[in-house]
């Protein structure tokens, strides 16, 4: 079982590190987007006003669309997000300013959406990225449970931490962080499988519904079932009175998503879904259905069955939409803990095997390969993440393909970090690779607030004057990360330290990657 834990952890460790790191960032997806598009200023707008503006814009600009989706602004989303299917097919997205009701004039950027998408699609074509992420999730589940079985003295080891003892310290740290947030680890891993279960484990849908799998989704989510549009036209009723009905029906829960099927046609329907911030379970099937022409409530559906609450509850816990500021930070810290657990595991794997070669000081090829991948996947990814934020501030605001170039910067920097790690690990030593990458990353993270003040300082001051801390919080988090990385880089200073300590701390050189796992 220890064997399984060791090897499953190694082979998928690098990928899981990237998934955990970007997933951790995704808990602040909306806040990151606010930072990358500082032009969009949050305003207090009532749901009714926002819905009215969205409806006006869509009626003027997308009257022949098959479907409209309207996401209303809330405390974390300053804009009105519109998605619609044009008659020619596909999807179009627009972001409306909640005050003017016109498309926002902001720099193009994927913002937090980029890290969120990467977390489960890995920048691969649909559906392969989701499959790979699901396979990684299953391996994580196996590694987690086999790790628990391997460490029988789990309670005792939780209170054991022996600092500055090399390999021992790493293992203590790995065990402590794993056990400390074990409920989070179990929840996040199991729920990640549940999120994509209809894709990865569809056998029971196929045997129950035959090849007609859309009937399964129609049963679950009646709100999204739509009839083909009829040719007869009819004006769409106002959405605002429907919001009032929803306020009566759903005590204390706001409307989140508005779906309009066949707008402008005689068989138009409007479905209202609840705002995910107001309850834990993810319940896309809970909806109020209205006749789109008369505005009458025709149907209401809910997801209160036990099995749907179980699956939806896990989905919701994973996404954390319901979390307020404090809980959101706890999610973030737990995510860092999970990332650190993976990082320490990778370091332990290499440290253990390095012991055998401590005398000669020369690592065999395969261990060098592992060290190269450790450096590139951990400090290299940290560099890639910060370069995304630098690109966001440095690329000209009016530059046409700037959103794509932010993403390209991310992957180019990651690729360069891999090349650098290759050169250093194979032609000098791993310590140099770690030191140089961590030093550069520390500088970039520490200077990010400075860059923000220089290039977008007016937005920062304006937001602080309004009492909005989002932009400043991201800058401060970057600064804290930079300080940690600088501390990490300092641990790799000088060659002599590693030689002296090599007897007792063969992996002392790698100790600091825990912090770097932010």
């Amino acid at each position: 079982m220890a064997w399984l834990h060791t090897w499953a952890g190694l082979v998928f460790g690098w990928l899981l590190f990237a998934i955990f790191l970007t997933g951790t960032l995704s808990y602040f997806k909306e806040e990151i987007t606010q930072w990358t598009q500082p032009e969009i200023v949050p305003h207090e707008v009532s749901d009714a006003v926002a819905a009215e503006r969205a409806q006006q814009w869509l009626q003027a600009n997308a009257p022949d669309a098959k479907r409209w989706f309207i996401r209303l602004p809330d405390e974390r989303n300053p804009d009105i997000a519109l998605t619609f299917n044009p008659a020619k097919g596909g999807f179009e997205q627009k972001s409306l300013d909640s005050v003017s009701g016109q498309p926002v004039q902001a720099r193009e950027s994927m913002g937090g959406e980029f890290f969120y998408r990467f977390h489960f699609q890995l920048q691969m074509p649909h559906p392969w990225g989701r499959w790979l992420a699901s396979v990684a999730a299953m391996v994580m589940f196996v590694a987690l449970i086999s790790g628990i079985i391997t460490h029988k003295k789990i309670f005792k080891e939780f209170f054991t931490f022996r600092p500055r003892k090399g390999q021992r310290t790493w293992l203590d740290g790995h065990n402590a962080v794993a056990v400390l947030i074990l409920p989070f680890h179990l929840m996040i891993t199991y729920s990640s499988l549940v999120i994509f279960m209809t894709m990865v484990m569809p056998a029971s849908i196929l045997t129950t519904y035959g090849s007609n799998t859309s009937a399964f989704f129609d049963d679950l989510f009646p709100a999204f079932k739509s009839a083909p549009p009829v040719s007869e036209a009819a004006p769409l009723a106002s959405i605002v009175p429907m919001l009032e009905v929803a306020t009566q029906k759903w005590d204390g829960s706001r409307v989140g998503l508005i779906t309009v099927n066949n707008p402008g046609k005689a068989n138009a329907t409007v479905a209202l879904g609840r705002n995910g911030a107001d309850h834990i379970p993810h319940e896309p099937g809970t909806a109020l259905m209205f006749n789109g022409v008369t505005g009458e409530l025709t149907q209401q559906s809910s997801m209160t069955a036990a099995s749907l609450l179980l699956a939806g509850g896990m989905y919701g816990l994973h996404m954390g939409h319901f979390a307020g500021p404090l809980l959101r930070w706890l999610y973030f810290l737990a995510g860092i803990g999970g990332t650190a657990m993976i990082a320490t595991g990778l370091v332990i794997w290499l440290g253990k095997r390095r012991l055998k070669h401590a005398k000669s000081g020369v690592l065999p090829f395969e261990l060098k390969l592992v060290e190269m991948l450790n450096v590139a996947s951990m400090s290299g990814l940290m560099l890639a993440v910060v370069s995304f934020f630098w690109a966001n501030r440095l690329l000209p605001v009016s530059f046409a393909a700037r959103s794509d170039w932010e993403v390209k910067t991310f992957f180019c920097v990651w690729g360069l970090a891999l090349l650098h790690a290759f050169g250093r690990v194979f032609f000098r030593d791993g310590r140099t690779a770690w030191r140089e990458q961590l030093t550069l990353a520390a500088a970039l993270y520490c200077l990010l607030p400075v860059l923000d003040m220089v290039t977008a300082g007016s937005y920062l001051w304006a937001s602080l004057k309004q009492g909005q801390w989002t932009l400043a919080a991201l800058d401060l988090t970057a600064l804290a990360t930079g300080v940690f990385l600088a501390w990490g880089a300092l641990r790799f200073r000088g060659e002599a330290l590693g030689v002296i300590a090599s007897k007792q701390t063969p992996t002392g050189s790698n100790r600091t990657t825990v912090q770097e796992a932010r």
Partner: protein
Amino acid sequence: MDAAMAPAPVPEKRPRAPKKSAAGEVSMRWRLAVASRVLAAVIGGYLLASLASVCLAYFLPLLFQSSRAEAAVLSMTLSFLFYLPAVLWCFACRTALRAWLGLLGPSAVLGAVYACARWLV
């Protein structure tokens, strides 16, 4: 883990240790056995989990008041709890052959139960 504090090895129940040649190389036979276990875990485990979810989705609506969509959701949710021990079994049992038998046996039973139920009801 401290060697002194580790429990005494129980060779009978543990997977066989890799047979190493005089040069310290792991034998080809051992490598193939590991590959076989990995295949058993991935494919055999998936088969077992799928069949378990198929049976659950079929029998839950008969036993409880639940719609077939709800039963399908629950069966998919729980299927991973069949996959996990299946994978662990493949690496805990003594030989690769046992790994395969331990998964294909229960899979055959589940498949037969489901086939009979479909045929009879």
